[in-house]
């Protein structure tokens, strides 16, 4: 049976399950409201017709009971009713559909089921984990909810276990409006419910700072005062904000108040130090409050699971026997999770047959844009080109990766000695050399944990090193992306450096669009090098 999971908020995305096998898991191109009329073409590009889909499932969104999601359908704007953000009194069973409805796809009305958003994330984490068939604890801390615990039973049923503390995950991103270069931008003082900002950018700022004991003490006081105290103000907060989505409740207003007080109480302390301290404080809270009675298999998911420092801290928790963080802990896994929930609605969450390379496929086009030259080039030759020229190259190969973490078929690569690429850079490292270059350097196939660059390597891969001496590392072993591994092996053979720098690229669906986007002068795809004519 083929199930299509849909995420219709933000840019949206679709996942297709053929029984337990993940066939597709892609985000739609960024835009405004999701256009349902575009779904047939997306399916067709990956070999599916709309009528192949037996069941349609929609991920829930902001709302305590249900959500209203704006979409484009039949060429006009419309609203779909979907499930809300999380389970609770209205939806006591997170693994059962909360809403049923109908929508038009390809000119035909079709039924859909919708599950609460947080349950989609629980399902995406558990069903992709190595814990299938065993019980596990799932910790979800997404932008719009508190850090919530769920227990997945051996039978694959999801049971809610409450929240660790009453703070939505977007709080750290919002801190970027109070500290750092964005301080004073719209929203910081306006109780905005708008986009909280980019947590990754705040982490980058925090990497320039050091944790300060005085700031930690202030944070503990303010956190208690604003969110957990038995005071009228804190009680009012907990009544008004339950973690059902950033736009469904006034959570931003309260978090902004907390952050304003933090800024006031830390005047004179460098912003980077405050952010580093805040990051450390929240990570410590996660670890302290996670206090299971017995050792557990833990899945950590939600946008907070993109923070390698927090992920690493949880891995060290004495009660965590094994930790699994899906490479798609944020909304990129929500469509997949919704489909998995539906597959397991009667039989329990399935263990999925999946790969990180289930994103957009590369379509072949008969023409190359003008002003681009083509040349045959094996991956080994590409590695030598990176080394010889010191210039970056964009890789457009096979299926794009799912989620924001793992690099694979859509990445800009460069020598880590030279750099020259912007963004959240990743040190791609041959797995067998990772422990020699990084501490701890243990297997990290999706770039999820915190690693420090060993001192003897900092001068050899300077572009991979963050100001705090850490690096995002993705180990590439024999079972991982064969093209990346070939490039790394050849680069190592010629330079003695088992690391190549990478950054995620747009999930291009064909080479021509990558060339026309104009980001890089050198693009490699399927053993062909595309180079802007006479580019220097």
């Amino acid at each position, binding site marked *: 049976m083929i199930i299509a999971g849909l995420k219709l908020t933000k840019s949206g995305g679709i996942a297709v399950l053929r029984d337990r096998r993940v066939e597709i898991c892609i985000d739609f191109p960024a835009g405004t409201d999701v256009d349902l009329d575009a779904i047939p073409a997306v399916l067709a590009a990956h070999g599916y017709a709309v009528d192949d889909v037996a069941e349609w499932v929609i991920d829930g969104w902001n709302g305590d009971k249900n959500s209203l999601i704006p979409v484009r359908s039949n060429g006009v704007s419309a609203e779909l009713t979907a499930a809300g953000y999380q389970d609770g009194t209205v939806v006591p069973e997170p693994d059962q559909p909360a809403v049923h409805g109908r929508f038009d796809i390809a000119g035909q009305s079709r039924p859909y089921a919708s599950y609460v958003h947080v349950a989609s994330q629980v399902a995406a984490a558990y069903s992709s984990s190595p814990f299938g068939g065993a019980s596990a604890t799932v910790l979800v801390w997404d932008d719009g909810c508190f850090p919530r615990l769920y227990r997945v039973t051996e039978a694959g049923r999801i049971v809610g276990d409450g929240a660790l503390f009453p703070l939505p995950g977007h709080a750290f991103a919002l801190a970027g409006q109070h500290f750092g270069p964005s301080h004073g931008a719209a929203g910081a003082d306006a109780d905005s419910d708008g986009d909280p900002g980019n947590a990754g950018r705040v982490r980058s700022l925090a990497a320039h700072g050091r944790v300060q004991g005085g700031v930690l003490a202030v944070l503990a006081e303010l956190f208690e005062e604003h969110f957990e105290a038995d005071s009228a103000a804190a009680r009012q907060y907990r009544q008004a904000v339950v973690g059902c989505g950033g736009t469904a409740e006034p959570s931003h207003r309260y978090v902004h108040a907390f952050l304003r007080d933090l800024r006031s109480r830390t005047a004179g302390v460098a912003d980077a130090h405050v952010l580093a301290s805040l990051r450390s404080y929240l990570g410590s809270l996660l670890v302290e409050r996670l206090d299971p009675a017995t050792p557990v298999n833990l899945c950590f998911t939600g946008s907070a699971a993109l923070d390698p420092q927090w992920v690493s801290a949880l891995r060290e928790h004495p009660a965590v026997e094994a930790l699994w963080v899906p490479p798609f802990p944020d909304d990129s896994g929500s469509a997949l999770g919704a489909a998995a929930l539906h597959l397991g609605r009667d039989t329990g969450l399935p263990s999925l047959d999946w790969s990180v390379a289930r994103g957009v496929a590369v379509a072949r086009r008969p023409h190359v844009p003008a002003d681009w030259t*083509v*040349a*045959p080039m*094996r991956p*080994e030759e590409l590695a*030598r080109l990176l080394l*010889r*020229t010191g*210039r970056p190259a964009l890789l457009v190969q096979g299926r794009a990766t799912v989620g924001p973490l793992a690099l694979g078929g859509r990445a800009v690569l460069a020598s880590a000695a030279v750099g020259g690429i912007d963004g959240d850079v990743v040190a791609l490292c041959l797995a067998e050399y990772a422990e020699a270059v990084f501490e701890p350097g243990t297997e990290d196939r999706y770039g999820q944990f915190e690693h420090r660059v060993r001192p003897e390597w900092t001068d050899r891969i300077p572009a991979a090193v963050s100001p705090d001496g850490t690096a995002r590392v993705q180990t590439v072993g024999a079972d991982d992306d064969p093209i990346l591994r070939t490039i790394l*092996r050849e680069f190592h*053979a*010629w330079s003695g450096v088992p690391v190549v720098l990478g950054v995620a690229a747009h999930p291009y669906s064909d080479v021509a669009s990558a060339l026309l986007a104009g980001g890089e002068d050198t693009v490699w795809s399927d*053993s*062909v090098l595309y*180079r802007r004519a*006479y*580019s*220097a």
Partner: protein
Amino acid sequence: MTSIKEDNTMNQAPRAMVISFQKSGTHLMQELMLELGYRIVGVPRPRPNAVPEFDDEQKAAVAALVLDKIDHDQLMELHGTAAFEDRTHEAWGALIWHWQQRLGQQVVNRYGQTRINFAESIVTNPYLPFTRFADTPAGLCWIFHELDIHRVDGSFLSEWVETQSPPLVLNYRDPRDTVISMINFLEGRTRAGYGNFYEADIFSTILASKTTWEDKIDYALRDPSFLARDQFQKALWLLNHPKVCKVRYEDLIGPQGGGSVERQVDAVSRVLHHVGSDLDAEEIAGKVYNPDSWSFYKGRSGGWRDRFSARNLARFNEQFGDILEQYGYE
């Protein structure tokens, strides 16, 4: 470019060519020629300190072979820029593929038609096909697995007959061991897999589908298109030509591979003499055995005895008994 060792350049040929059968210890020949100061072009997988490194003057000279006068003049105006580096690198690539074609190499099936097309798109000098092998950069040893006299450009043969340059060396091995080595290679038992020839993917899959060594060997002997199956027949002209230096894997491998010092030094000495080197053969011989080579597996000879069944041996003798005799293995 790192040139042929200074103390050895008076008599040593500026260019050399080695025809080394597949799975016959090409890496040994590569190590030997590197010791003589040559850089390597051809079928060996490129690696640091083995590929040519040209200075700007040499890059310009290579580009002059490949580009017409106008293009070359324009290129020279780019001197000192990244574009100069890119375009001279492309010119060198085009020159390599041009000569691979003229020497009758199996480019299309091994590397793809696009290599030829790309080279042709770079070449603007109409005189390039008329240039001689002696016009290629000095200090290089070109290593190939075959030199098929029915495919090679006659102008190269004419130049070779006339000048005996480049000196030709033929390296071979017991054909029964090459069959076993090829199967090991295609099944990925060598250090770095089975290399870059596209055709290898095909035979690797076929061999993996055969469950016993007997079946694998039987297939290798019976499929006329199996890799390197006809290399011994096609090189009989090289084996019999008095101006070609012949060496055997079993001799080059030396004591570390189960051979003897005497035979190894003798083989190296003959190669040195053939290319005009006055380096010390004994010293060089001690450096040619390199288990770090990417295509290295066991580096032993006579392994076929452990793998050939009586049925395999009977078929081999029936099909290749004469070859075995001509190459001196019976």
